[in-house]
């Protein structure tokens, strides 16, 4: 519940003094404790910094809390979720506890979002162009014709052929890749500083995935915006983002420059995840034994301890904090 | 491969508490409790009350301490008759709906599973059956045959078969190509085994919800048939017939004759529909 800001003096990395665009600190989110008695704490102190004009990936397996972190930043936590602790700041402005009007201004304004299923994020009963124009009109106060033209321009920039005509089509007339391009156009329509993309290509074939990701990067770069790309595929993260944050069981295990982290992981979980993407030979694919822990209460030890090859007694004494080691941050007592 | 069954006895038995808890959950649903009450009244009520055909001293007496619901035009006690009538109405309703399920559910499942001409044929037949106004259809058959209780039950069941057929068909259709059904085919199971073991249990919830609605509907049809004079004849205690008998006295101010059996129909139908809702939304 402390909204005091990062005065603790420990987490000033390179470029100290410069306030990151987005700072998440010790974010802890819980569900329930209600009638069925089941309490779960899927986010157990997430800390994350996204600098300006930087592409950062948030990598982790299903249930590790990636989407939930994103919804907390957007002020869109699902019903029943409570922020138990922590702070989320957009350039110094605290977002936890901010009123709904303010959050609505930010969403679609300074922060934009792109979800996995493009068809679910576009309204099926309005034309694609109409929806984008509407967003532009509401957020920038431009006139109808002006907004419409800007929407068509955007669609064109996203590589939709014959954009003026396609703007008056409905989502169901778009193919999967086209729809995701339209969603991107909508997300970028208000010139956001931060684009959060939650598994934007997961449902798509690899060939399309590549096309869409290339486009996202190109656009984000051209606009000087930051990207928080949520993905479970470390190969995608490596290919697209200069920074990486690896999540496990509601915590960030390691973050830093993608090249450094993927070249030599400092956290055993990151190492294991990386190995799972390298195939040695027939019949030998790396597998992490065991399963992800269920988070029904506050953690008391390293969440990866049960599956870790390097585990020792000190791993079980308390939850390892993120420590700065060179250019990165690592949550592991052995690092 | 010698069969020493007690070799390791690894089979860990299931926790046996499921059933008890299911019963507890059932009781937490209010409409179920009310329905249970209605059924109990129908079953045991008559033992505590007199003969529903026994004549009293007064005709058309207003509700009083002696006659809670008053008496009718024949001087019979309406309360006694309403309770006795519950037996007949519920019985006809349940049996008719049960017969309809028994015929409609397998046919609908088979139609969905087989598809093709068999499906089309069944669908067309049931569509044309449903195209007739139910009551008109029932009326026609009753007047052609002679109205007796078994005939009434058969007719009410018949007009309900298409309802189940189509309901089951549409519930089964998405299951026909479900992976777990394909898996059962891979296990070398035949059509009927798969239907019985995998498909029908997975649609039973929908069908049971419909069953409850259907009992209500059957009671309404019976009451309606009696009301228009082709169903059960007075003085047999039956709610619809009683409403019809009492309707004439309404305008003279003797409202109770028709009102109480009418309320009994209403309460039963509402309860059954509520139960259907609880089945659909529960568990």
């Amino acid at each position, binding site marked *: 519940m402390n909204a005091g800001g990062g005065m603790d003096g420990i987490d000033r990395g390179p470029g100290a003094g410069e306030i990151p665009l987005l700072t998440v600190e010790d974010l802890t989110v819980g569900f329930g404790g209600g009638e069925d008695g089941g309490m779960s704490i899927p986010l157990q102190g997430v800390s994350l910094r996204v600098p300006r004009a930087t592409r950062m990936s948030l990598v982790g397996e299903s249930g590790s809390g990636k989407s939930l972190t994103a919804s907390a930043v957007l002020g869109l936590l699902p019903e029943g979720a409570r922020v138990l602790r922590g702070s989320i700041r957009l350039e110094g402005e605290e977002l936890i506890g901010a009123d709904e009007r303010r959050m609505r201004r930010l969403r679609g304004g300074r922060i934009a979002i792109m979800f996995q299923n493009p068809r679910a994020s576009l309204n099926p009963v309005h034309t694609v162009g109409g929806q984008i124009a509407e967003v532009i009109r509401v957020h920038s106060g431009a006139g109808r014709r002006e907004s419409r033209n800007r929407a068509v321009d955007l669609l064109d920039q996203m590589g939709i052929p014959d954009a003026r005509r396609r703007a008056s089509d409905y989502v169901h007339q778009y193919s999967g890749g086209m729809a995701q391009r339209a969603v991107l156009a909508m997300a970028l329509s208000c010139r956001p500083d931060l684009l959060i993309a939650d598994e934007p290509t997961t449902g798509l074939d*690899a060939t399309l995935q590549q096309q869409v990701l290339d486009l996202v990067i190109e656009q984000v770069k051209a606009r000087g915006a930051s990207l928080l790309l949520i993905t479970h595929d470390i190969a995608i993260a490596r290919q697209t983002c200069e920074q990486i944050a690896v999540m496990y069981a509601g915590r960030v295990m390691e973050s830093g420059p993608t090249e450094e982290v993927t070249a030599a992981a400092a956290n055993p979980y990151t190492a294991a*995840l990386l190995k799972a993407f390298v195939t040695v030979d*027939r019949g030998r*694919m790396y597998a992490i034994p065991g399963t992800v822990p269920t988070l029904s209460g506050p953690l008391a030890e390293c969440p990866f301890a049960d599956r870790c090859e390097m585990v020792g007694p000190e791993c079980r004494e308390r939850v390892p904090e993120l420590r700065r080691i060179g250019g990165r941050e690592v949550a592991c007592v052995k690092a | *491969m010698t*069969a020493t069954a007690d070799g390791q006895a690894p089979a860990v038995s299931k926790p046996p508490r499921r059933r008890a808890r299911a019963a507890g959950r059932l009781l937490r649903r209010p409409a179920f409790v009310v329905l249970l009450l209605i059924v109990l009244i129908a079953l045991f009520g008559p033992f505590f009350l007199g003969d529903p055909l026994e004549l009293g001293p007064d005709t058309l007496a207003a509700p009083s301490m002696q006659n809670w619901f008053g008496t009718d035009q024949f001087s019979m006690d309406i309360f006694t008759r309403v309770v006795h009538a519950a037996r007949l109405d519920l019985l006809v309703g349940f049996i008719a709906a049960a017969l309809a399920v028994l015929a409609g559910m397998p046919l609908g499942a088979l139609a969905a599973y087989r598809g093709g001409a068999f499906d089309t044929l069944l669908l067309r037949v049931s569509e044309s059956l449903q195209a007739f106004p139910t009551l008109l259809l029932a009326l026609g058959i009753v007047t052609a045959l002679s109205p007796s209780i078994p005939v009434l039950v058969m007719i009410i069941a018949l007009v309900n078969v298409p309802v189940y057929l189509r309901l089951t068909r549409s519930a089964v259709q998405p299951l026909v190509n479900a992976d*777990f059904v394909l898996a059962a085919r891979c*296990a*070398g199971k035949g059509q009927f085994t798969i239907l019985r073991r995998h498909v029908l249990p997975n649609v039973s919830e929908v069908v049971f919800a419909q069953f409850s609605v259907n009992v209500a509907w059957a009671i309404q049809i019976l009451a309606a048939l009696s009301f228009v004079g082709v169903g059960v004849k007075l003085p047999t205690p039956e709610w619809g017939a009683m409403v019809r008998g009492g309707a004439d006295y309404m305008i003279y101010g003797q409202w109770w004759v028709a009102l109480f059996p009418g309320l009994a129909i209403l309460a039963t139908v509402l309860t059954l529909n509520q139960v259907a809702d609880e089945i659909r939304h529960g568990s």
Partner: protein
Amino acid sequence: MREGMNGPVLEVGELVKDYVTRDAKLRQRVARAVDGISFAVQPGETFAIVGESGSGKSTVGRVLLKLTDATEGNVHLLGEEILGMPERRFRALRRHIQMVFQDPLAAFDPRATIRSSLREFAGFGGGRSRAEQNRAIDQAIRDVGLPPEISWRRPSQVSGGQLQRLSIARSLLVKPQLLFLDEPTSSLDVSIRGQIVNLLVEIQDREGIAYLLVAHDLRVVYVMAHRVAVMYLGQFVEIGTRDQIYERARHPYTRGLLEAALLDEPARAGDPVRLTGEISEEQVRKPGCRLTPRCPFAEARCDEPQQLRPTGDGRLVRCWKAVEVPVSIGLHGSGSSSEGR
């Protein structure tokens, strides 16, 4: 009893499958999902089919298991032609060909315990006593690394990875000669993916089962497959050994897929290929190469029908350029060197 270990487990010839659907106005639409494919699977071998979604991979498997009818062609399972065989007679043969589904949660009856689902397979064709069935079930579950007690739970009460193991255990209960694996890991997490893949390879090495593997995930295919067929819009466009496909792919589509898969292992020969656009069923009706709208090398002659042609090193490619002028599509030097596995 049958031909024993010589001869292929499965032989597919010129298989065609049309799906007939009706649109809102009840007009009939015929979609050709599989368009004349042929291949054979040898005992103990993993034959993989890769391609984008909608290319017809799952349909091939479902036809082979007779879960849906074929339109044309022939399929020999252990030497017996099965496409024309009535369901009743085929039922006994099902013990030789089994399937593992993509989504394990959908593959189990949600109302039944896992054990009763396994029992259906343990009791295949009758003949085993209940005690024998129980023992077989427990052993099968142990073989996939789980405690037998888990089988008393319902599908929703175990994790996806565990359920996929149980699904594999279930199909192995009938001791099949061929297992069709339809995206066996794509609903699982990456940390679990390796467990399943390794388990499958282990089982194959131990029991000598043949696999027909369909997968998106080219890493999984790389680890499991001996031979790979690349499928696009109902046709094979390239067939070869795993190393031929992964290291020296020739067809532009194969190379585009590999490029997009972001693999960091085997080094690939030739210039990288980027496919544009999306898979579109429209192309099926055209006579020429179906990849033309997406292929960076397309030219006029590509609109002529393309045949699967041998390239000299034992593989087949459906692209005239790849066969006749490999240099024109960025394949330099080594084209005809032969190698084995």
